[in-house]
C-alpha cells in the first residue's frame, strides 16, 4: 500500500516536471529567447565560417572582397538570403536563399540563391546582371522588376558604383550550394492575413537536388 502511494506520487511529480520542463523548453528555446547581445554575432560568424577571404591569392580581389563583405554583412543580406527554418535562419547554408515573401498585389517572391552554384545560384549570372539588380532592381530574366519591398534594391541603388563592385566581388566568393529557388509567382492576394501588406515565411521554399 505504502509502495503504491510512493510510486503514484513519484509518477505525478515526474509528469508535472515533464510538462513544466516542456513548456520551459518551448519558452526558452532559441532564437526566441533573447541571447545576450554581447555574445550574439550570428551573421558575422556565419560569414566568417562560410567564406574564406584569406584564401584569395590576388590582393586586389581580396581588398575589394573585404570591403564587400563589410557591406554585405552590415546590410543584413543574409537576413533574407539564409534558408529559413523553424529554428531561425539556417546560417550553415550561407546565402542559399529560399525565404518566401508574399506581397499583396505583387505576388510571391523567394529570396535568391546568392552562392556560386552554376545551376541554381548567382554563378549563372553575369557581372552586369548582378550589378543591374543591385543598381536598378531589374532582373536578368526578361527585365522584370523586383518589387522593392521584396528585394530592397532601391536602397542598394544608393551604393556608389565602386562599393557595388566590391559587393559583387564578395558575392562571387561565396561557395556554391545547390538549392533551387522557384521563380516569383504572380499571386495577387495574400492567403492568410488579408490585412497585411507582406508576409514572410518560416518554411524553406527552395529545393535541394
Amino acid at each position, binding site marked *: 500500500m505504502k509502495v503504491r502511494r510512493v510510486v503514484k506520487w513519484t509518477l505525478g511529480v515526474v509528469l508535472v516536471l515533464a510538462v513544466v520542463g516542456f513548456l520551459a523548453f518551448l519558452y526558452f*528555446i532559441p532564437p526566441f529567447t533573447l541571447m545576450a547581445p554581447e555574445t550574439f554575432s550570428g551573421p558575422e560568424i556565419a560569414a566568417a565560417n562560410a567564406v574564406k577571404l584569406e584564401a584569395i591569392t590576388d590582393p586586389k580581389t581580396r581588398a575589394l572582397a573585404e570591403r564587400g563583405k563589410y557591406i554585405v554583412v552590415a*546590410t543584413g543580406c543574409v537576413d533574407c538570403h539564409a534558408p529559413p527554418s*523553424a529554428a531561425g535562419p539556417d546560417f550553415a547554408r550561407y546565402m542559399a536563399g529560399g525565404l518566401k515573401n508574399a506581397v499583396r498585389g505583387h505576388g510571391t517572391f523567394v529570396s535568391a540563391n546568392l552562392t556560386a552554384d552554376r545551376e541554381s545560384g548567382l554563378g549563372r549570372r553575369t557581372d552586369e*546582371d548582378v550589378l543591374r539588380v543591385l543598381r536598378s532592381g*531589374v532582373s536578368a530574366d526578361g527585365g522584370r522588376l523586383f518589387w522593392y519591398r521584396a528585394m530592397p534594391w532601391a536602397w542598394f541603388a544608393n551604393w556608389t*558604383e565602386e562599393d557595388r563592385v566590391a559587393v559583387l566581388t564578395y558575392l562571387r566568393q561565396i561557395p556554391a550550394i545547390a538549392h533551387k529557388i522557384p521563380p516569383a509567382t504572380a499571386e495577387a492576394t495574400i492567403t492568410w492575413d488579408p*490585412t497585411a*501588406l*507582406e508576409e514572410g515565411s518560416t*518554411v524553406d521554399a527552395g529545393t535541394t537536388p
Partner: protein
Amino acid sequence: MRARESVAVRRVDKVGDLLDRTGGGHGVTSSSSVIFRFVLAVLLISGAASAQTPSAAGSASAKAIYEQHCVQCHGLDGRGNGAAAPVLVPRPRDFAAAQFKLRTTETGSLPTDDDLIRTITYGVPGTSMPGWQKFLSTADIDSVANYIKTFSPRFAAERPQSIPAVAASVPGAPAANTVAAGKAVYEKLRCAACHGTDGKGTGAIATDLKDDAGRPLPATNLTEPWTFRGGATPQDVYLRFRTGMNGTPMPSFVDAANQTELRNLAAYVLSLGRKPVWDMTAEEVKAFYQAQAAEAARDPVRRGRYVVSTVGCSFCHTPVRDDGSLVDGMLFAGGQKWGAVPFGDFVSYNLTSDKDTGLGGWTDDQIKAAVTKGIRPDGSRMLPFPMPWPSYASLTPSDLTAIVAYLRTIPPISNRIPAPSRSNIVSYLWGKFQLLILKKDMPLLAYPGNAGSAGGV
C-alpha cells in the same frame, strides 16, 4: 564598360552579355575581359544580331510596357513619384514637369525623340535608370518614348529646339594645351562655386543645391566620370555645358563662353577624372579605402547619410501606404507595424530628431545600443527580428558614430510609437509548439499604414 561610352562600345557590352549568359563564371569586369568580349563580339557579330533578345512585350502597348518596367520609380501618372522614389537620389524623372537633363536642345527646351530614346536605350550612369536595350526592342523603346511624352501637355504644344548641327559636333581630340585652357574656363565660369576647386566639392560655396522641385541634389563629383549622367566622352560633357541640364542648378553656358572654350572645359573636366577601384592596383585600392575612411572621419554626417541610405533603415522606419509605396515627407518617422507570430506586434521607431517621440531624447550610446545590441533605453531587449540588429552588430565604431551624427540631423517629425504588444503566454507557447514541433509556417506580417500617433496614411 560601366560609364556610358560610345554606342559601339555599348553594343559590344551587350553582345558580351549575351555571350556571358551562355558562357558561365566571371570575375569582376576587367580590361582583359573587355578585350575578350570584344574579340568574341567581332567573331560572332552576325550571330549576335540574330540573337537580339526578343521583347516579351513585343505586341503589348506602350502603356503596358511602361506599367511593367517604369512605374515603380516614375509612378503611374509619370510624376516621378513611384513607390520606391522617395529613397532614390537623384529622384526619378517627373515626366509631367517635362524638365529633361539629357538633351541636344537649347536650354529650357524639350528633348528630341532621339534624346529620350537614347536615355531609355542606354540608361543614365550614376543613377538607377538602366539601359533597356537588353530587354526591349527598338520599336518598344520608341513607343515608350512616345508614351512618356503624353504625361506633359508641353510635348503637344511645343517643338524641341535642337542646337545647331555645328554646335552639336564641336569636340575634337583634346590636346595638352586644351586642358590648360579649359582650366581657365573653369575659373572664368566659376564652376568651383558648386563643384569645388578640385571638382569634388572642396571649397564649394553652393553646398545646399536643390532641383527644381526643391529636393537636395548634390553637385556632380567631377573626379568620377563614370557617374556623369550624360556620359563621359568629350562630346557628352561638352553637350551638358552647351545645353544645360533642365530641372537642375546646372545652367547652359551658351551665352557665357564660346564653343572652343566649352570644348576646352570638357577636356579639363575629363582630366580631373580619377581611376575607379576596378581599374586600380591592390595598393591603390587600399590607399583609396584609407583616404575614404579619413574623409568619413572628417565629415561623419555625410558618411552616416550614406550608410543609412544604403543599409535601408527607411525600409521599415517609414510608413507605407496600402499600395506599398513609401510615404514621402514621413521618411524615418517610423510607424510601420510588423506582426511576428507568435511573439507579438512591433512598430518601427521614429528615428527623426523629435525630442518627445523620436531619437531627440536619446543619448548617443542609447542609439548605438539599440542598433547593434537590440537594447532599448529602458533596458528591454528586442528580438533579432524584425529589427535586424544582429547584422548591424558588425558595423564599425566609426560608422556607428557617423550614423548617430546623421540621424541627429533629420528634421523632427512628431509621431509617437506604441510599445510592442507581446502575445499572451498561452498563445506564445502554443505558437512556438506549432512552429517547433508541428513545423507549421509562422508568418512575419508587415502592415500598411502608420501605427504612430501622426496617423493619416
